[in-house]
């Protein structure tokens, strides 16, 4: 239904555009240049006036009406539903929607049939109401817009304003979504922290949520929610990854921007960026099947005790994965350093590498640091490689040869399969998510401070 109406609005918009444009031509008479705005702006003006409100009604109504319909129906049948629990109400609501829509309801009885019929008539009323409103607003808008078109009418400015509003709206949606995610993270975490003490979470050194009993009558072990082992695991793997990615990425970027011939650069850069296109799961099995055994075998040859899943394997492969993030962004900022600075340095008798070390890199530092921060965030958020190559055991260790686990992996495990959303075991995921968010955010802030302190600004 929505799509049909949407198509109709679109068709109306096209017609309005054509009509508006030709009316503008008509009112200008023979003096085409007398028009304040080009005819197409008058066309857009008509689209905005006639189709705009109708479209807004369509979207808003479709989004809001389910939330209005449900309490309406439930209050209509309040006496019969008095004893229903929240879950049963949900079921009832799904059933009548299914009956009304011709689907497969869970329970079908006379009461639900009646409720479904009532639901159907109400939603039909709602639809008729919506379409009437759309037509009324569209017609009014059309009438107003049509009469406004004149030689002196500033359609161009009106359209420009509409563009601005539209852009601001898009930005608002993006910002509100972020705020919403952070808020939900915050509130769910607060619920978690009412069940598990924040101190136990932040300073506990054992992580065993899977020991938790599923039901009250089940005998479970003691679940512990200390996130220190996860934090060290995350930091250890991220550190190893950055030890690989930062030097490789930056050196590759320097080569590509300052040493490579244009031909090499034209091939090398896309190939390097191709690394970023490989799915992480592919890196994961590469890590688990090739790198991890290699590290274990060479470790054993040296007489070291290496587990078959190790932080080192995951970290190294992850480092390779994020090389393109570092190199591509660094290459852009290094290339952006003005040639005049390079010339100035060369003119004083500096060699190429002196110029790069003393002039180009300091000038490109802010960009390089932000590339590194982005890479760290990426490494911290990576899950698949760790699951496959570093394991799931929450060991509290700084030994890169042992199996460790990370925050993201544990979030994944906690939320996989059938879960209840009121047990600390599940809610722990939000606590972990929040801590990850705080870590990444503080990292960004620190990086920003560092950059502002040491930046060498060129113009």
């Amino acid at each position: 239904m929505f799509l049909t109406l949407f198509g109709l609005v679109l068709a109306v918009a096209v017609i309005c555009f054509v009509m508006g444009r030709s009316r503008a031509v008509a009112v200008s008479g023979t003096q085409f240049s007398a028009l304040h705005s080009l005819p197409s702006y008058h066309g857009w003006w008509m689209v905005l006036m006639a189709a705009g409100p109708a479209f807004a009604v369509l979207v808003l109504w479709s989004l809001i009406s389910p939330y209005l319909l449900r309490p309406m129906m439930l209050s209509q049948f309040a006496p019969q539903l008095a004893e229903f629990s929240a879950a049963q109400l949900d079921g009832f609501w799904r059933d009548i929607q299914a009956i009304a829509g011709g689907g497969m309801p869970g329970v079908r009885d006379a009461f639900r049939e009646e409720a479904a019929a009532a639901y159907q008539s109400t939603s039909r009323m709602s639809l008729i109401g919506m379409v009437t409103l759309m037509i009324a607003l569209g017609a009014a808008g059309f009438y107003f817009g049509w009469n406004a078109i004149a030689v002196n009418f500033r359609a161009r400015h009106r359209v420009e304003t509409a563009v601005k509003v539209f852009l601001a709206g898009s930005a608002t949606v993006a910002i509100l979504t972020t705020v919403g995610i952070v808020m939900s993270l915050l509130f769910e975490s607060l619920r978690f922290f009412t069940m598990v003490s924040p101190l136990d979470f932040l300073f506990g050194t054992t992580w065993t949520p899977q020991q938790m009993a599923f039901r009250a009558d089940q005998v479970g072990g003691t679940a512990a929610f200390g996130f220190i082992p996860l934090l060290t695991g995350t930091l250890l793997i991220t550190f190893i990854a950055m030890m690989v990615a930062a030097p490789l990425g930056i050196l590759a970027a320097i080569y590509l921007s300052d040493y490579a011939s244009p031909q090499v650069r034209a091939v090398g850069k896309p190939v390097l960026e191709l690394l970023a296109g490989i799915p992480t799961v592919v890196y994961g099995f590469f890590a688990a099947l090739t790198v991890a055994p290699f590290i274990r075998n060479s470790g054993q040859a040296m007489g070291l005790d290496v587990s078959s899943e190790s932080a080192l394997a995951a970290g190294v492969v992850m480092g390779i994965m994020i090389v393109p993030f570092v190199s591509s962004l660094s290459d852009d900022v290094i290339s952006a350093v003005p040639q005049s600075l390079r010339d100035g340095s060369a003119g004083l008798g500096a060699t190429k590498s002196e110029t790069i070390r003393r002039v180009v890199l300091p000038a490109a530092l802010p960009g390089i640091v932000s590339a590194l921060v982005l890479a760290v965030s990426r490494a911290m958020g990576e899950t698949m490689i760790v699951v496959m190559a570093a394991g799931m055991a929450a060991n509290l260790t700084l030994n890169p040869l042992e199996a460790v686990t990370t925050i993201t992996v544990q979030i994944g495990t906690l939320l996989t399969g059938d879960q209840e959303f009121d047990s600390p075991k599940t809610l722990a995921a939000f606590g972990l998510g929040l801590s990850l968010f705080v870590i990444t955010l503080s990292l960004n802030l620190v990086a920003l401070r560092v950059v502002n302190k040491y930046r060498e600004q060129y113009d």
Partner: protein
Amino acid sequence: MNSLPSFETTAATSAVPAAAVHPKITGRNVNVFYGEKHAIKDVNVDIPERSVMAFIGPSGCGKSTFLRCINRMNDTISICRVTGDIRIDERDIYDRSLDVVQLRARVGMVFQKPNPFPKSIYENVAYGPRIHGLVKSKSELDEVVETALTKASLWNEVKDRLQESGTGLSGGQQQRLCIARAIAVSPEVILMDEPCSALDPIATAKIEELIDELKQNFTIVIVTHSMQQAARVSQRTAFFHLGVLVEEGTTDQIFTNPVDTRTRDYITGRFG
């Protein structure tokens, strides 16, 4: 490099008397190619020591290209090819055994647009002495920086803010900082590629005054679009046109009594 023994210049310039007994820089049959393009054609020139030589000519005539041959800045352009013979103190600067890094330490350059490094004023001047290891101690470096800034008549303006960024200075100060940066390496020659084209008249006047002082210690070659500037600061002037050195002589002679009609037309504003 094929060096020709002939010290005679081309027909147009042969009438000009030799610049000095001992020219600092000599160019003989210099040709420059950018890929297929023949940018400089058989240029012969003598540049006298401790004086100012100006290169003038319309845009694209090759004067900047020739200037950049003198410290081999054209080396950084891969399609650029230089033939002929350029000597400083009778030493071929395109000789294989010559280290381009040392050449550029002896031949400093000031660019069209002021290009101070995004570092402090002090670090800008200290850059050259540091990379060439010219000083042994911090106090010695301080001295070099002060001397260079003084010679560039910038010391009084910046002595209290040496640690502030060089990019925060005004355009004219930035250009004098770039001159100080070049002087700090104690070069013998300073090449200036339209050093005042991005500056206002007052800053330009200061730079010109500075150039006049610097010629006591340095050999200066300046490319300029302003004929008044060439007349004000230089002792000798060379006029380039379409890659050819049309005429070279004392500045007085070039501006009051040019031999070639092209020079006369350019100087009187008939073309260019």
